[in-house]
């Protein structure tokens, strides 16, 4: 799909807050950051607190990025938690919907198309 040459490169940052783990995603979230995503996922699951992914600064996401979030959400649900996406990100919303994964997430934003 995309490469870092035609837009901002992707970035993955994990912040451990007191009551949740925040994963900040930005730029192109694709294969180029796959290793960072995997590490972030492990850290977030190990932390054991609710996971919030801030996707407002994501400007490109492919199936690698989307399926990372889907897997994380599925494991959060297995642990009785719901993963929150801090949006909006119409692009990600569309991809997750087409992948049939929308019900695994709770969107926290106020845009049309974003769920409550």
């Amino acid at each position, binding site marked *: 799909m995309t*490469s870092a040459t035609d837009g901002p490169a992707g970035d993955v940052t994990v912040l451990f807050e007191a009551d949740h783990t925040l994963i900040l995603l930005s730029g192109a979230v694709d294969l180029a950051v796959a290793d960072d995503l995997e590490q972030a996922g492990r850290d977030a699951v190990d932390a054991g607190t609710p996971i919030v992914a801030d996707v407002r600064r994501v400007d490109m996401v492919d*199936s*690698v990025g989307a399926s990372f979030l*889907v897997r994380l959400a599925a494991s959060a649900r297995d642990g009785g938690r719901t993963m929150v996406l801090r949006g909006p990100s119409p*692009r990600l919303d*569309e991809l997750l919907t*087409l992948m049939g*994964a929308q019900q695994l997430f709770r969107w926290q934003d106020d845009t049309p198309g974003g769920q409550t």
Partner: protein
Amino acid sequence: MLGSFCVVDTRPRTWTERDDHVLDVLARAASSEVALVLQESMLTHPVQPDHLQVAVRYRPAASEHEVGGDWYDAFQQPDGASVLVIGDVVGHDIAAAAAMGQLRNLVRAMAFGRDDPPSRVLTRVDEAIRGLDVDTAATVLVGRIERPSGPTDATRRLLWSSAGHLPPLLLLRDGSGRPLATPPDLLLGIEPRTPRHDHTVELPEGSTVLLYTDGLVERRERSLLAGMAALQQNLSRLAGRELEDLCDDVLTATLPPAPGDDVAVLALRAHPEPERPVEQPQEESTA
């Protein structure tokens, strides 16, 4: 790791940064070549069942670092029914290409010789991914061509189930058509207990169904739905085109000059069946 790349000089020497770079490029080229060969070895010729025509295409991404996990498949059941598959393994590397090979064969194994609807096939594949610890996620669509009232029925019907895959596009002989959009079921490799659904559409004579992977409709500057609409438009202009030509032309019209992702396409056409004898009902009503 799937191999190693070792370079030795006959005399002592210092490796410069430039040397390292050249070797790195060489190693990458060798590994994506392996992945591409692996990929293409999985893409076999489709079946051509009676009065159905299947055409397939695979286009690798322009960048050799982006080997994909896209595949198409078409095979016949022992009873003659045709099964069509399109899938896209998450990722663009040699691991994705290898996982694609596993998934393709899992779908074949779970579908072959059984009467299960496509939704059941996908559930069984999903259970196998979990049970056999196949570390992958993928969108897959499985379809089956049926004759609703048995082998002599001239009506053909597509029965399909989609695990998070992009909807097929239907093209009728007159150029009209639509995406066969359905409420999406979850992609494979996440949750084997997820509910799955089957859908049906009747295929009139001369109609075409296009299955494709996201590389065909995905652009940085527009949404996937906009990409699908553009694809449907390109298709409608090609109504009446012979199926193999249609495949070439729709790829040319839709893909950018240097595609960033690989693309798999499977097109199916339901040809008319003029030769098929009309069978008389066994029991005439005389009441």
